[in-house]
């Protein structure tokens, strides 16, 4: 009717109308900042180019100041200390502390960045703004949150088991840190390069169960106990598919050492996700169950059992639980990258780019996938999840392990260039996986077309008789 422009009716609408995307926000910042960021990136790139040149030149390889591999630096430091004639305990303790510090700073840094990323990205998924008041783009929000959490009063239920109430936040933090031990960040950059690394990973991940259970039990709250029992049941069930999926990896690569697994993938230029798609899917899905993330976050399903096993925790104790959840997500990202996505390697580019940067990028991608899932999917029910593990993932995983065992023995005995068997394996595994999943799903009675029947349209009204007529016809 009228030609006049639509006026924003509310302050909220005004805010939305003035809303800028991240890029627009960046275009709007002052020239000094833009120049600074540009200089930073350019300097980093130039430094990398220079180092790559020197590396290719062959002058710097293997020395401690080679930033492609900080492990070299630590090794150099250790050698220097041994040459200087310190007591043998000193290099040992120093390098151990340095490694621990590195892992702590990675995890701690991620706890700060990851929560910002999660909230911000999730907000973009949900057409919201997300944190944008503290600092540029709300970057200081995690710090503000942490300070807030630390200041909060810690309320302890009177009926709680005091001895056990204090322990769980710490207990479940330890595996979340220990799990980082065997992750190879670059060729020689691994804190604890165990030759039973895969087994170690599984064993450490099974330790978190007890912390979760104790948290639920000692709170003396039915919601906590329900959440704890759900989580324990789920974790115990999903450890089996994880173990079997990793068994396939171990069979194919012939080693339980994480660095060897990565080296195998780098050697054949083949990511294991291409060779073992079902194992990769199993690992990813079961990991979401292990670390309580959507769509498997039934342990702390907020619409059902408030906050699950940490309902009664407040202040920084609850903060620790949330931090562990975040840290576990990023740890699973690291494991996923290491086992299935080639770890710190990127088809030869790791000689040019520091390996830990490649690994961090891959971790970030997996983490983004987690956030994406959280912003998209509803939650499973406990019985559905358990059925999915026991009826679907475990049988198919076992079948896949048999297949991989045959393939591994062929691979070890067949004397042709590796590219032929690997491409054949990839095709066979992909085809068989698709076929097996389809057939097994049919056998379990899965019928999507009947499920999604939509309501019918009635033009007349009526009661029971009309209903029976509609049902009959």
């Amino acid at each position, binding site marked *: 009717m009228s030609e006049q422009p639509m006026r924003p009716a509310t302050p909220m609408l005004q805010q939305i109308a003035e809303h800028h995307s991240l890029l627009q926000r960046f275009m709007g910042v002052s020239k000094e900042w833009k120049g600074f960021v540009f200089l930073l990136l350019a300097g980093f790139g130039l430094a990398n180019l220079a180092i790559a040149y020197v590396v290719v030149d062959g002058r710097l390889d293997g020395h401690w100041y080679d930033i492609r591999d900080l492990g070299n630096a630590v090794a150099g430091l250790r050698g220097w200390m041994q040459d200087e004639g310190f007591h043998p305990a000193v290099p040992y303790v120093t390098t151990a502390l340095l490694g621990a510090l590195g892992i702590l700073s990675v995890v701690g840094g991620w706890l700060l960045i990851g929560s910002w990323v999660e909230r911000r990205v999730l907000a973009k998924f949900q057409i919201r703004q997300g944190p944008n008041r503290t600092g540029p783009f709300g970057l200081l929000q995690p710090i503000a949150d942490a300070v807030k959490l630390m200041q909060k009063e810690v309320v302890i239920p009177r009926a709680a088991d005091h001895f056990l109430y204090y322990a769980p936040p710490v207990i479940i933090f330890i595996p979340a840190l220990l799990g980082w031990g065997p992750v190879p960040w670059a060729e020689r950059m691994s804190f604890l390069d165990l030759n039973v690394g895969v087994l170690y990973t599984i064993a450490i991940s099974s330790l978190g169960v007890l912390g979760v259970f104790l948290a639920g039990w000692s709170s003396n709250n039915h919601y906590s106990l329900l959440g704890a029992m759900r989580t324990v049941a789920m974790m115990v069930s999903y450890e089996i598919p994880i173990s079997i999926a990793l068994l396939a990896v171990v069979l194919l690569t012939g080693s339980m050492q994480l660095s060897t697994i990565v080296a195998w993938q780098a050697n054949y230029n083949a990511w294991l996700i291409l060779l073992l798609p079902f194992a990769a899917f199993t690992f990813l899905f079961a990991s979401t169950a292990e670390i309580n993330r959507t769509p498997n976050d039934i342990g702390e399903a907020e619409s059902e059992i408030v906050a699950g096993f940490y309902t009664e925790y407040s202040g920084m104790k609850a903060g620790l639980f949330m931090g562990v959840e975040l840290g576990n997500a990023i740890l699973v990202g690291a494991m996923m990258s290491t086992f299935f996505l080639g770890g710190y390697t990127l088809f030869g580019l790791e000689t040019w780019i520091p390996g830990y940067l490649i690994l961090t990028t891959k971790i970030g991608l997996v983490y983004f996938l987690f956030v994406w899932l959280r912003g998209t999917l509803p939650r499973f029910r406990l019985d559905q999840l358990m059925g999915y593990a026991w009826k679907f993932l475990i049988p198919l995983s076992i079948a896949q392990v048999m297949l991989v065992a045959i393939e591994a023995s062929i691979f070890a005995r067949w004397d042709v260039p590796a590219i032929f068997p690997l491409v054949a394996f990839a095709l066979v595994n992909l085809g068989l996986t698709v076929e097996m999943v389809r057939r097994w799903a049919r056998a379990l009675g899965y019928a999507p077309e009947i499920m999604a029947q939509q309501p019918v*349209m009635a033009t007349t009204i009526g009661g029971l008789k009309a209903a029976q007529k509609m049902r009959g016809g």
Partner: protein
Amino acid sequence: MPARRRQGTNVNSTVEPYVLNIGPQHPSTHGVFRVRVVMDGEVIRDLDMIVGYLHRSMEKLAEERTYTQNIPFTDRADYLAAMSGNLGLALGIERLAGVEVPERASYLRVIFAELQRIASHAMANGTLVSDAGAWQTPLLYMFREREKILDLFEMTCGARLTTNYMRAGGVSFEPPPEFWPALKELVAELPGRIDEYMELLADNEIFLGRTRGIGVITPEDAINGSLVGPALRGSGVPWDLRKAEPYCVYDRFDFDVPVGIRGDVYDRFMCRMMETRESVRILQQAIAQIPAGPHKNDIPLALRPPVGEVYSRVEGPRGEVGFYLVSDGGPAPYRFHLRAPSLINLSLLRELARGASLPDAVVTLGSIDIVVGEIDR
């Protein structure tokens, strides 16, 4: 959990039943609604609902206010569908006092009631999916349309939630000129949005797994249990007051009634979704047909209807909103009763929840779509 000592032995029970208190502050009770459930593991054995945290004794207060003064109470009862409540009471007063309504006012009433239905269904479906565990994304998407509708309300009557818009004899304000282009834009945009939601949710495997076959209500139970609205239609009973007892000018519009097939949570969800589509159809026709004219007839400030009683009802988003008004000839109603669909739809809650697991019960409660302001009044 330290075990309580129990007298006697019950050899059949494998797990100790315990009492779980859900609410009044719980994310999935949609307000200050409380249920105490007796649980056996994850399975609900028994359920007792406790309401009244929001009880304001609206019906008693209404007996001391004039008929027009009572209209704001209907906003506060069902605060997610204030327009429908307004409309029901306005129709009741008109029928009781014999007030005529201009035709344009009837069309405006239809337009606002249908907008309110879309907004309320968006809220209901969003919270239902949120209850099913989608972390607020569908809810916030559906808030996008609801915000636009509330902006239209704000333009017209100054309030977003408690509109107080319908009056005996018409509506309180003529919409401003910029209302119409905004409404047309919204109506043009809505079908695409609804298709988007259907695409996102109607075929989602997890959502189907969570809602198909859950909380099944047979048509016999639904009718006998006084269920109304989408809860009744989801069970397969094609009953809609807009067609059964056409009030305002609903008999002039062409629309269908979506009816569920199996009576489970998914059918109730989809009924709401498709009703939104039908509401858009009604809106399109209403915008095309609306005549010029006054938007209300003036009535006396202290209306004194003759002695008598009336039960007027409209099809709100949650079903039949009924007003039972008894007049003794005075300026205030002698008796004012609001038939609250949210409360009465809960009649079957106990039967539905017994034997269901906790997540299923939460989804079922979400699909019944309660508004606690209306339950407690």
